[in-house]
């Protein structure tokens, strides 16, 4: 079961104008894995996540999700290609740094929009699924509130429930806690730890070192459009192969005052 491939991305290239942001990135994710992506600002982490969901179309490469492959060098928006892209988007749920909740909908409506609009579940069943997920993220008592009434941590938990409501193969999270005050981060991280424990496949861009150490099966380090290093968390934090990772971690531990790097290093 653990060896079943969920995502298989091959030779991803992405350019914005003259800037080559992804330079032939390969990435394989097995079902149930939690992969954390770290790396300096501008290294292409967000772009990589968005390419896996095809929110951004790579210039070249292939993305395979559960046996469905999109060849990104095919430009046309032919019927077949568009259907494949949609298929992959449905199976890969995104959680954004700024939540992007739908402000005109209540919490529960946010969560069931995908099940109703995309998965076409019968309404009573979708509502049931939505309520169960809100319970799981601890927000069932907020089901009829509008997002404007929620704290950042609560918004992000709703966004996570909304992603899970798509019953995705994998959840892609782009710095889910970095726009939150430190005291609100814990509640979101706790939800993510719980998901990891339940075997949810996740790719998480984050700078939360303690969290990454705890939940990650693998850590990818991106630098300048490449995956520079790929390690188990123990090795990554205590004995990284490249000096680039070492100096990055030193910088991170400086800004976040994370003593544990020194302790295990």
């Amino acid at each position, binding site marked *: 079961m653990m060896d079943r491939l969920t995502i298989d991305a091959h030779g991803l290239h992405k350019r914005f104008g003259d800037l080559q942001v992804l330079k032939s990135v390969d990435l394989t994710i097995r079902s149930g894995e939690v992969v954390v992506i770290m790396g300096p600002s501008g290294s292409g982490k967000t772009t990589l996540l968005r390419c896996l969901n095809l929110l951004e179309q790579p210039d070249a490469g292939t993305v395979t999700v559960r046996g469905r492959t999109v060849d990104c060098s095919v430009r046309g928006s032919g019927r077949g290609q568009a259907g494949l892209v949609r298929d992959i988007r449905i199976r890969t749920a995104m959680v954004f740094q700024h939540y992007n909740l739908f402000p005109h909908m209540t919490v529960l409506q946010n969560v069931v929009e995908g099940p109703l609009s*995309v998965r076409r579940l019968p309404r009573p069943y979708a509502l049931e699924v939505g309520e169960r997920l809100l319970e799981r993220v601890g927000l069932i008592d907020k089901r009829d509130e*509008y997002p404007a009434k929620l704290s950042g941590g609560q918004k992000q938990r709703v966004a996570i429930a909304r992603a899970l409501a798509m019953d995705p193969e994998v959840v892609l999270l782009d710095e889910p806690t970095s726009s939150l005050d430190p005291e609100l981060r814990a509640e979101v991280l706790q939800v993510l730890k719980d998901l990891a424990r339940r075997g949810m496949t996740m790719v998480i861009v984050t700078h939360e070192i303690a969290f990454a150490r705890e939940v990650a099966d693998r850590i990818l380090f991106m630098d300048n459009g490449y995956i520079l290093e790929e390690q188990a968390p123990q090795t990554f934090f205590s004995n990284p192969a490249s000096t680039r990772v070492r100096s990055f971690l030193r910088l991170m531990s400086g800004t976040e005052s994370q003593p544990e790097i020194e302790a295990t290093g």
Partner: protein
Amino acid sequence: MDFLALQTPALLQGLAVTLLLGLVSFVLGSGLGTLIALARISTFLPLRLAAIAYVSVFRGTPLLIQIMLVYFGLPQLGVRIPPIPAAILTFTLYSAAYLSENFRGGILAVDKGQWEAANSMGMTYQRILARIIFPQAIRTALPAIGNRFIALMKDTSLASVITVVELTRVAESAGSSSFRYIEAFVIAAIGYWLINTALSLGQAALERRMGRAYA
């Protein structure tokens, strides 16, 4: 006060025609305006250019000339349209040009994260528009749309020049037959004012309602 007693039925009928012209043209103009707004923000250049040209023509020329072209001009090309449909057609085309700009502004004001969230879950373009973008765009554009509606209600008085018996034309003929012009036009003005006050109140209620989620 025998003037009032004598003219009330005609004035009420005129009021009804005015309402009909305004409401129908607004609804149709909103539909057409939405399509033009979508064309205007499309990635397909010819569509965008067509939308720009449309808005430019209908905003840049007098409504009175547009009405007369449709009613008096088209028969020259063998197209004969009765007065009320001709008026509705012209008002629709005209208000669609303005409304499309209001809608476009509303659509562009929606945070692009909303598109991304909806796209990332695989929603179709039509679905994203209907469920995510339009509800937010309309809220932003509502004040401008309300102003448009009110302006349109007043503009319908131009239909009198193509023989449509709406409020202004009724007042005109009531005035000229009785020489009580002041009474006739003041009553007509009150009629427009009542309609537009009702519209303003409706707009305010709608704004409150749509703002609830954001309070």
